[in-house]
């Protein structure tokens, strides 16, 4: 049997509060991180993703104190990313309560970091996050630094490389779809899912429960991450899972 599909709310952290943008831009403030963590904890969501979207661009390390405070209220799996560049960053994040770390820019710039972290802490705690921008139809390019720097690399081969280096999961985000609530990029998700054997988390574009079902079914993802749909609409992770169950997918309820 397969594992149960996960619905993962994503919290994007900038300066001192949560934000959500569109296409990795036009950030809107969406409230306090602690409040969000408490609510999601009470609602027993499957897993939470917490990304500090300015750490890398500002050349900062992860904000360990903030993660520590949030993790203390988080009795569900917590993946933390943003500014992770060294094994020591990872060690400290795990120490303050993260269960997994999300590595994006550093995974492209120094892929050996993935191997070092996997060797030291195990593959299961390494999520490699790839932000992909669509080029001409049917081709994609991976970007780093919260989508601001183009790498010229194909996200599918990057995902393969990440798996080879020891990544335990791949988080694939469509930059164009992000925040639009027009649905996940199914083609991108499917290509990555088919290229690797580790679990793939689809991200960017969820606007309805059906979008999630599509990412899981057509995109062959193991989990769906979503932010806007939970911040800006009445839709909830629990209802999402009820819908997914009606569609015949295995969920935890």
């Amino acid at each position: 049997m397969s594992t149960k599909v996960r619905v993962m709310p994503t919290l994007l952290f900038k300066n001192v509060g949560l934000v959500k943008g569109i296409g990795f831009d036009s950030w809107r403030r969406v409230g306090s991180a602690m409040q969000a963590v408490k609510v999601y904890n009470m609602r027993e969501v499957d897993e939470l993703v917490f990304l500090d979207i300015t750490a890398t661009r500002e050349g900062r390390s992860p904000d360990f104190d903030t993660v520590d405070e949030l993790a203390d209220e988080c009795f569900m799996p917590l993946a933390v990313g943003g500014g992770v560049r060294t094994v020591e960053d990872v060690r400290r994040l795990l120490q303050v309560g993260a269960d997994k770390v999300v590595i994006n820019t550093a995974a492209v710039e120094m892929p050996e970091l993935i191997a070092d972290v996997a060797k030291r802490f195990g593959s299961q705690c390494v999520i490699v996050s790839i932000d992909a921008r669509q080029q001409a139809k049917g081709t994609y390019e991976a970007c780093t630094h919260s989508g601001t720097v183009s790498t010229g690399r194909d996200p599918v081969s990057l995902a393969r490389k990440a798996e080879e280096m020891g990544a335990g999961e791949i988080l694939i985000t469509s930059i164009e779809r992000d925040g639009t609530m027009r649905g996940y990029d199914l083609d991108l998700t499917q290509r990555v899912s088919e290229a690797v054997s580790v679990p793939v988390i689809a991200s960017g574009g969820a606007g309805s429960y059906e979008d999630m079902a599509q990412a899981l079914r057509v995109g062959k993802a193991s989990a769906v991450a979503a932010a806007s749909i939970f911040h800006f609409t009445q839709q909830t992770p629990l209802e999402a899972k009820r819908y997914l169950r009606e569609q015949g997918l295995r969920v935890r309820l």
Partner: protein
Amino acid sequence: MRTVGIVDYGMCNLDSVARAVEECGGVPVVTDRAKDLDVANRIILPGVGAFPEAMRNIKERSLDQILYEQVIDKRIPLLGICLGMQLLATRGWEGEETAGLGWIDGEIRRLEPSGEDTRIPHVGWNEVQVIRGSPLFRGISSGRDFYFVHSYHFCPRADSDVIASTPYAGGFVSAVQHDLIFGVQFHPEKSQRVGFQVLKNFLTMED
């Protein structure tokens, strides 16, 4: 109130476990020192990471001997979580062959995919089917979902040490018990209410 020694051998994941113990009514003491563990009436061996490095760290700190005294000689109940459960085995095969603590006879092997849907690592929520009554699962019905994140699994030599299994990658052992030594492959500290019930059971069970 139970004092719960949470063994710190440099492999992280300690804060979550300590916070969960607190929420479950225990007093957590995160430590690698014999004198702290000596006053604990429960011991939790947590762990995220790779087996060989974990065993190296344990030995460097003489924790194998310190824990042996508490768990085997003094029969203080111990709960191994995830990698902490795996370390209870005789040996592990993660990367290289490594001797474990050897308190529950068995080996740690890599999960093998059983079909197209089986992705490794096994990450996410899955069912824990209780195979035999154990104080650890008191009040918890068989088939509840717990949070897993692992690539290796415990293969005990004796069926009698198995208390629960999970239907993934052909089925694997998700909880073991030998006398007062318990191990769970899932993360009770991250499995919300049902996970807390496991921790509460461990804290409140009779010695």
